[in-house]
């Protein structure tokens, strides 16, 4: 099996990025898939999202979200998994194949060609949203009152 060493933190990061990305953006960057065998799914289901009481206390069930999961094996034996938000099966399949590819010698090429542009786009979207929020931050000023004179 041709599996390169990679750490769980890095894997967590790319899996999260692939889960959050819009299906169309991923499809545009990755129109074709390498040969693979599907081990599971893609299957649409629901995940119960939990919150914390008071924002910091014990958990409670907030409501569900749709999630699609998929597992694949590449020709070299690398296994990839994906859990992505929404009901797009092609999205979950692509994310699982990418997860597997990131464990092979092609990792660097995949990172540069697909993950980096997705990450840049996400960072830009987040920065723009934060900048719009910052523009609505209230700058208080105190009026000079008569008795202060």
């Amino acid at each position, binding site marked *: 099996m041709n599996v390169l060493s990679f750490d*769980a933190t890095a894997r967590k990061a790319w899996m999260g990025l692939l889960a959050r990305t819009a299906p169309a953006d991923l499809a545009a960057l990755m129109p074709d898939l390498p040969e693979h065998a599907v081990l599971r799914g893609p299957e649409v289901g629901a995940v119960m999202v939990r919150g914390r*009481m008071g*924002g910091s206390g014990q958990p409670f069930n907030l*409501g569900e979200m749709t999630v699609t999961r998929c597992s694949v094996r590449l020709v070299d034996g690398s296994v990839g998994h994906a*859990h992505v938000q929404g009901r797009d099966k092609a999205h979950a399949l692509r994310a699982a194949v990418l997860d597997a590819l990131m464990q092979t010698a092609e990792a660097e090429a995949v990172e540069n060609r697909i993950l980096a542009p997705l990450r840049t786009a996400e960072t830009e979207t987040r920065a723009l949203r934060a900048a719009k929020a910052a*523009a609505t*931050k209230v700058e208080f000023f105190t009026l000079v009152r008569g008795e202060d004179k």
Partner: protein
Amino acid sequence: MYVAVKGGEKAIDAAHAWLAEERRGDTSVSELSVAQIRQQLTLAVNRVMAEGSLYDPDLAALAIKQARGDLIEAIFLIRAYRTTLPRLGASTPVETAQMAVCRRISATFKDLPGGQILGPTFDYTHRLLDFKLAAEGEVPAAPTAPASLDAVPHVTAMLNRDGLIQTEAQGNATPPDLTREPMELPTTRPLRLQAITRGDEGFILSMAYSTQRGYGRTHAFVGELRIGTVAVEMDIPELGFSVEIGEVELTECETVNQFKGSKTEPPQFTRGYGLVFGQTERKAIAMSLVDRALRWKELGEDNTGAPAQDEEFVLMHADNIQATGFLEHIKLPHYVDFQAELELVRKLRREALAQAEAAE
């Protein structure tokens, strides 16, 4: 005598066909797309997700289109759909302290770390109809300002440092799930919060308003209201670690409530909590007031007999799908039940008239 009656298939088919035609409306007006509903009727989409208890904006938008804009009907469609989905698991609790906020205000502190961020709010609009919206036009881009991507701290966490506010009980116990086991009374706070967050906005609003008017008053301040996105993370057994499976937009409201102390608790501020899918601040504020009112027992407060303190009354009437189902079923055929009533009333009338005649 009971006679089974069949029929009406043709009438029902025709009714459905007409419904589809009415849904489409005048064909000289262009058809509304699901994407347009998702993008431009966002707050309706959010309400359907919150009360449908399923975060999926595309599905909520489709449900609104199918329901011709009847939001309770749309919520019904989402509730029905979610029962068809296998449950893949449960997330770790979302960390709202790490929320990427688009709105964050406090009614208790003017100058607080992170500042007062108004976000895309209706609050300071004049509520005058804007006829410019009746014409198509370009919208100018919203202004931007240099921003920090740091998380903004919770106001209650700051109050908590001084011991002035009650601390939330810690732990990671698996919470009860009313979609899995029927709700049993008395309930616990996690079950109440689940029921309220998916409860009808109008009902929760009215319950909260009743506490403000004196029926179970809780002296609430909005310590903090925040809207933004949080990451949803789930443990994946085959990986042995947790990964982000997406992100959701949430509205969180924390009330800080005056509390003079009780038989069991010292004087300190207490909390009410609201957390709702989407940008849904009326609901989140209302939820936090109702949550606080229902905590009277654990805080050792008096039960004043107010409706908002009665968990059976609140929780058993908050769900608009249950309510609609029971309310609207009475319009369906009850011919046999009514026939029995008719016979009974006739019999009673005969007896009453016979007695009156005998008395004369």
